[in-house]
């Protein structure tokens, strides 16, 4: 196994450990008095963690030249989509009893639900076009343009979290700060690239 694949294995396993522990806790009755709420919140938080991890790949490549990470990025994005789907399914079944009309009503009436649902719907085409075949079909440029929507997904996700909190904004603010930092690094490199007359893109650093 080469280093890139080993790294991918490590990242994938670690990303799924919280799910494994969640399921173990759920099966052994350790999720507290309100297990559904706990599961819902945990899968939501894990979605944000995976989204931020996906968006950290490029800054790390630019800052430290860790190009090896690119081989894991698709998996990180798909894990974000996986946690998001789990989150949505949990909400649909346990909070809304699988009643589609109730879900649509919720989206129409509750801005924070609408924002969360929008994030999922934007993520959907990104997940579908994550195959090599789709990249070929779309062409690298178009594919890249489409997948810039991942920024939007992350913003919607953090806003969704921010909107549901009653008064203690510590955790939403933590994610918002992380996201702002990642955007800041990207903008910095974009500006530098412009100044040097390069096309904004990934500058490979010789080792």
């Amino acid at each position, binding site marked *: 196994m080469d280093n890139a694949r080993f790294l991918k294995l490590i990242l994938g396993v670690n990303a799924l450990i919280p799910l494994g*522990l969640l399921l173990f806790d759920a099966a052994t009755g350790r999720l507290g008095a*309100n297990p559904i709420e706990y599961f819902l919140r945990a899968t939501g938080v894990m979605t944000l963690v995976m989204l931020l991890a996906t968006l950290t790949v490029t800054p790390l490549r630019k800052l430290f030249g860790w190009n090896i990470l690119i081989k894991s990025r698709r998996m990180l994005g798909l894990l974000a989509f996986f946690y998001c789907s789990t989150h949505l399914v949990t909400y649909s079944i346990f909070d809304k009893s699988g009643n589609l009309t109730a879900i649509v009503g919720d989206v129409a009436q509750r801005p924070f639900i609408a924002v969360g649902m929008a994030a999922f719907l934007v993520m959907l085409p990104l997940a579908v076009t994550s195959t090599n075949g789709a990249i070929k079909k779309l062409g690298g440029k178009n594919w890249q343009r489409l997948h810039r929507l991942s920024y939007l997904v992350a913003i919607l996700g953090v806003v969704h979290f921010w909107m549901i909190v009653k*008064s203690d904004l510590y955790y939403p603010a933590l994610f918002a700060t992380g996201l702002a930092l990642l955007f800041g690094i990207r903008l910095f490199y974009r500006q530098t690239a412009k100044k040097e007359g390069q096309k904004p893109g990934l500058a490979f650093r010789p080792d």
Partner: protein
Amino acid sequence: MRTPDRKEITPEPLYLNRRNFIRAGVFAGSAAVTGLMYRAYRPDSIAVAPEEAPQSFGELTKRSEFQANETPNSFEDITNYNNFYEFSTSKTAVAREAQALKTDPWSVEVGGLVESPRTYSLQELLNFPQEERIYRFRCVEAWSMVIPWVGFPLAALLDQMRPTAEAKYVAFETAYDRSVMQSSFSAGIDFPYVEGLRIDEALHPLTLLATGLYGRPMPKQNGAPIRLVVPWKYGFKSIKSIVRITLTDKEPPTTWNIAAPREYGFYSNVNPNVDHPRWSQKRERRIGEITMRETLMFNGYEKEVADLYRGMDLEKFY
């Protein structure tokens, strides 16, 4: 640069072995760290089984009209899922953090528009005849429990104080000790926590000053040593760890109303027909149940309390 001797080069099988060894270490180490991080965010409950504790209240009056015809939640659930923002904004962490609350000595200062203001020691309050009342408890966050409280009607205390004719409202205040209330800086609401009732609500026979639950003294995370319980209102009206009760002629300020006036009104009666601006109040999750159940008007106490609000627009006075 000196070319290494052939014998200095690590033989390939040994090199690969070392690499596998390092990889296994990285793998196990990272998994352990991730697991520990997950555990750190999921504080274990500090459950105490009710039978381990002595029965502290002697013979309790159990009046049939105050026994909600439902199975109470377990002692473990009631004492490990709490909102007490002074200690933590995480409902599962309050049980641990709130143990720092100092409840001995404790006194409650009763004053304002009363003929005989005075300070009660906790023991004096425990001298009121204590009774058990099994009430539904509905949180504004759309979850609910059934709790076997121990306490006495607030009306019994107020009758002793003899409120003056000008007294129209009752204001309550929670203890505030920054040195043990670690969360109070970041909770996002102002402290000390304050609440209030209209005087007819305060005198209603359902309104309880609770001193315990499950036949034993009030656990700290549930608002030791004495708290209010107003079963037809959202839980945040049932203020915990009371140190001051003041009768006033004006509607007193209330903590959540100050924090978000559009979301939490002074009345905050449980009402499935008036949604919270951000979420629905039509249904609730009873702790211990998987799906949601319908929320009842005035939390099922409509027959008893609807008269208090006759002619009021409950959408306006939410």
